[in-house]
């Protein structure tokens, strides 16, 4: 993310917080009420960021009509793994992107945190970000969209729905980072 992007992020964050304060919701709203679900572990992301990522996954790849839902595939844990394995700069950008997403709805016509909106409203907010005139919103939305969608469509459990016959090499050979991450998740009592 560029320096300009960072400045915009701060401005948007401040703007969002002001909107919230005016709405009488208070600062408690900004950081509380985030709970992991059974089997989830936050390794690369904070608990809050993981909850936002889960909300995003539900909006971007909801499943149905032959498609498995992103939540059912454990996609949020896969995203946590990517952030954990990414270099420091990229991981920091992804975390910032999720933080911005969580607090952006008041600037796009929806009062409430992103993770507290209905799935339909989350989709609407995200579409508005993609089509926004503000570069930062598009940059954040495109980055998150691509991360979620590549993780989803690269998953073998999705392939029957899209008519993809899969790799010719039958045995998956996970990278060292995946094995190390799985170990960490296991040690912390997660499902991975």
């Amino acid at each position, binding site marked *: *993310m*560029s*320096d300009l*992007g960072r400045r915009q992020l701060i401005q948007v964050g401040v703007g969002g917080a002001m909107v919230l304060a005016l709405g009488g919701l208070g600062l408690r709203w900004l950081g509380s009420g985030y709970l992991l679900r059974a089997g989830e572990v936050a390794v690369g992301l904070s608990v809050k960021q993981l909850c936002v990522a889960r909300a995003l996954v539900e*909006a*971007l*790849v*909801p499943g*149905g*009509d*032959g*498609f498995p839902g992103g939540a059912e595939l454990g996609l949020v844990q*896969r995203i946590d793994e*990517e952030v954990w*394995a*990414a*270099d420091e*700069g*990229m991981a920091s950008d*992804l975390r910032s992107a999720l933080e911005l997403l969580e607090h952006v709805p008041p600037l796009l016509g929806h009062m409430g945190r992103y993770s507290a909106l209905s799935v339909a409203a989350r*989709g609407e907010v*995200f*579409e508005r970000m*993609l*089509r926004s005139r503000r*570069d930062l919103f*598009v*940059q954040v*939305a*495109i*980055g998150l*969209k*691509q*991360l979620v*969608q*590549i*993780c*989803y*469509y*690269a998953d073998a459990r*999705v*392939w029957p*729905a*899209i*008519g*993809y016959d899969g*790799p*010719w*090499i039958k*045995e*998956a*050979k*996970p*990278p*060292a*980072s*995946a*094995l*190390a*991450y799985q170990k960490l998740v296991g040690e912390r009592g997660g499902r991975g």
Partner: protein
Amino acid sequence: MIRQGHELDRDQRESVDVCVVGSGCGGASLAAVLAEQGRSVVLVEQGGYYTKDDFDQRELNMLAKIDGGRGLHASDDVSVSLTYGNNVGGASVHYWADSYRTPPDRLLEWRDVFGILGHSEEALAPHFAEIERDLNVHPATDEYANRMNLLVERGARQLGWHVARVPQARKACRGSGHCMQGCSYDAKQSQLVTYIPRAVAAGARLYSDLRAERLEWSGRKASALVGRVLDRATGRPRGPTLRVEARVFVIAAGGYGTPDFLLRQGLKAQLPELGEHLFVNPCPMVHAIFEEDVIQWRNIPAAWGVEEFRLARYHGPRRVFGRPSQSRYLEGGYLFMPNQLQPGLLGAVLPGIGRAHAELMRQLPKLGGTICWIDDVEPGRIRIDGGRRRIEMPLTGGNGQRLRDAWKKQAQLLLAVGAKQVLFGDAQDTRIERAEQIEAAVRQLSIRPARNVLGAPHPGGGARMGASPRDSVVDHEHRVHGFDNLFVADPSVFPSPPSVDPSLTILAFSRVAAAAVAARTS
């Protein structure tokens, strides 16, 4: 001998004739030439060492193993996705195997406009002949053309555009379509199966999972390179170091990696052009839904390529990279290819979210598309900011003109061969169904940051060649200005994009560099 990071438990020392940083096309071929001439060589590679047995054709697994930044890195404003190798063999392990000689017109431009000496068509011809033998380069034959390839060939002929078989570096290709995930059959003739084994057989020692961090100096000479072993699981330093003392050091860390490394050595003050003049071949994609199945994910990515627009057409003299325009741009300035993406990447670059996106992906067998490698004219730059690499890549000016023309031509061809819908893949999800909609659709496409999905697979120019440090970083022998024994052998030295896939140009230039290094170590 190849030693991987996990095999190194304590600090190591080496003393050799030549130390090479990076094992892609530039570093591996130079190492092989020098080792076969009897020089002692150490190769240092930041990425891991993987063979065909590690290539499982799963996109995420392979992005983690062989792609720099796990495929997540982008330019500073998120306009282009950065694609580069991070493994023994470098980007040649995930490239498409397209293997063109540098076009003579581009070599002439480099000589006449940029003053490059010793890299003429005649000087490079014997190198190209040898490289083509070593890599088994041949034009793609009919059995390698998938349906999308055939549609591009047919469309180009229908529109009167010059189309040709793409020269390929392959042996007994099975046509799995997983070139970008590393070849599981050793059919693609990457550095992993060509010059690296040759270098090692001739005695070169290769250290993988080792980040080159610091050069030590003795006056105008580099005296040693110090690197740190990385933990492959996390990419973070693990503890042990390697110190290589050498008579000559060659930096071949790639179009992004080499300027990055040299900038971190604090050389910008002496070499003001370092990190400037970056090009990346930004590549716009256009997608299409056909009535018929095209199964674009199988067989080789590009058996046929449209060469009609490789050189841009101007009303007046043609514009040169980094120089102001003196003529009115008419069209072209890109190579035009069929596209090939496995479902993960395709899903990520197709427009939209939710159910609408899923319905698009449900049509996967009927989804095809094309891609253009833009021959940049507006330079970008690489800088280090707070320890982090920053890439600035303008899509405005002449680059923007070429992007728009490439979108138009791709839509034109796809509709001409029966696409029922063409998708530009932009954030606004622009789609058209008829040729008369092309002009208006392309006119409204925004080139503001992140509005389009563009790859950046062929970086170079950040340590360009020239006569003096006022306008370049290395001289005609690939030696860094002002230093007696520091060389660069990769696309960073190109003064402008080669206008075709750069692999053969890198290999041929590396042989010129190898001759200069050999002379200093005889």
